[in-house]
């Protein structure tokens, strides 16, 4: 049973069917087909796209909620301010470090765990269930758990464990804030990567693996030349989806370090939140939002090409 890609045969049959039906599509039929799509499409456009257009509008104005009288058109000056804002550059860099750090470490750990779980052993289901649990814990609870119960300098369990090896207690969230955030994030996202890679491992054609072992290939050789190429699609997909989710990380930063000390561990979502809801500087926050979206579009269009290849969306 193929469990991974859309079966090629089925795909081509479907394509043929679609082509045949496309020729028969008349105007009325076209609208009948669009009918079921329109409510979802219109709803999504209104709720997600209109606010963004308003964001662009705000970004060209100087507006502060604390001074309602002053609402002026200021052109691109908000963008000029961002260009010279060193905090913006720092938080952008933090975003990159946190996102890539989390996704890459979680992926390496996820691959290791998936390989370990892909062998038959007693109690495998229980071990798997234990391993996916961190992903299911509410992120707000995760943040509480790590910042207080695990990493607290006086009674945190992590420092106590380090103490057993003679290492002095460290106030992680203020001394190494990004490391502390990464610990919580990697803990949460490793199960996600593990699940995707494990699905990939289990979709491996068994006859190919048997043939390799008959031909005398050792486990390492088999892994390198058969398993890893097969897993590539799954790893790419995991990294891509991981980036989409992790780049928006807010809960852990808000609760574990509040972006501090200073702005040392703030990422872009947190910094924009600060400007908008603590500084009430709508124009600046909106302009930063626009910059983030432009950056996202650049990264995402490359990523989307990849996801479409994975899904084999063809027309």
């Amino acid at each position, binding site marked *: 049973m193929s469990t991974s890609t859309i079966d090629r045969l089925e795909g081509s049959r479907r394509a043929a069917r679609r082509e045949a039906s496309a020729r028969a599509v008349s105007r009325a039929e076209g609208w009948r087909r669009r009918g079921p799509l329109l409510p979802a499409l219109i709803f999504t456009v209104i709720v997600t796209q209109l606010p963004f257009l308003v964001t662009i509008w705000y970004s060209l104005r100087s507006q502060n909620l604390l001074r309602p009288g002053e609402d002026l058109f200021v052109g691109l000056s908000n963008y000029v301010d961002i260009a010279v804002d060193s905090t913006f550059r720092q938080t952008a860099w933090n975003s990159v470090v946190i996102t890539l750090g989390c996704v890459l470490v979680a992926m390496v750990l996820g691959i290791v765990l998936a390989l370990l779980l892909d062998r038959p052993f007693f109690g495998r289901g229980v071990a798997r269930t234990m391993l996916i649990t961190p992903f299911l814990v509410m992120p707000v609870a995760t943040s509480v*758990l790590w910042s207080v119960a695990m990493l*607290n300098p006086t009674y945190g369990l992590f420092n106590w464990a380090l103490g057993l090896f003679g290492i002095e207690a460290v106030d992680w969230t203020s001394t190494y804030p990004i490391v502390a955030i990464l610990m919580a994030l990697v803990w949460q996202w490793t199960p996600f990567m593990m699940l995707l890679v494990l699905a990939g491992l289990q979709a491996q054609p068994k006859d190919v693996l048997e043939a390799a072992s008959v031909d005398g290939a050792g486990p390492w050789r088999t892994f390198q030349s058969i398993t890893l190429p097969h897993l590539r699609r799954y790893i790419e997909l995991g990294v891509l989806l991981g980036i989409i989710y992790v780049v928006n990380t807010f809960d852990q930063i808000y609760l574990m370090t509040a972006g501090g000390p200073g702005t040392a561990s703030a990422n872009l979502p947190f910094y924009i939140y600060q400007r908008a809801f603590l500084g009430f500087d709508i124009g600046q926050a909106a302009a930063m939002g626009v910059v983030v979206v432009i950056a996202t*579009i650049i990264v995402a269009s490359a990523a989307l090409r990849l996801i479409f290849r994975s899904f084999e969306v063809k*027309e």
Partner: protein
Amino acid sequence: MSDVTRAYRRRTTGGALTTLTWLLAIGFFFPVLWMAMTAFKQENQAASDPPTWFFTPTLDQFRAVIEGGSAAYVGNSAIATGVSTVLVLLLGIPAAYALSIRPVEKVSDVLFFFISTKMLPVVAVIVPIYVVAGQLRVLDNIWTLVVLYTAMNLPIAVWMMRSFFLEVPGEVLEAASVDGAGLMRTLRSVLIPMVAPGIAATALICVIFAWNEFFFALNLTASRAATVPVLIVSTMTSEGLFLARLCAAALLASLPVILAGWIAQKQLVRGLSMGAIK
């Protein structure tokens, strides 16, 4: 090397790998276990140095959380999660149908559009949403969260449901159309029953994301519409030293999703990959 030594070596490596797997599984699970243990402690045991490993479990913290007015928060979370999930399915299933079984033109453009809204950072739209919600007087209103959570999960649902519809064999649909069944009848009596497990998987994913959502809830609610994550945060900031009670609240808040995820592990993979991995 004789067969006997080879078999022996394979068994010992196998044993070592199994041990390693269990150590890692316990390591990853341990913080959750510690949170659960702490929830059953008295406060002085929860914040002790060295940590308290053995204690008489108490339900005091759970009682304090439940009696401390958490019902309103749970009710809000239930409405936001439940209603948004139903709306997502009502909007998403027909849309997925129009992108798979009787496709519109430019299917990939529409799919691209839906997925691209997931990549739009929420911070980029929070400002206008906040200002407009203020003008419409729907700040601190649970229905505002319902609408936003629906929009947040709809793209995932469209992608997932499409992947399930694509698995329906063409013959079944041809038979239905030969029988002269219209769209609604085909959907109701043929398609929906066939993709019921897919609908369950989609609903599960929507429930997880909506139940855990914090950013919108933090910024758009105050007292009346606040949800469970907001309750945890306010417990944390107002009663920062009550670690045991905090853990009890965090455990109760996480439990629904943990249990759902444990039961539906298989659907989880498919949902998280938006239908790409079966």
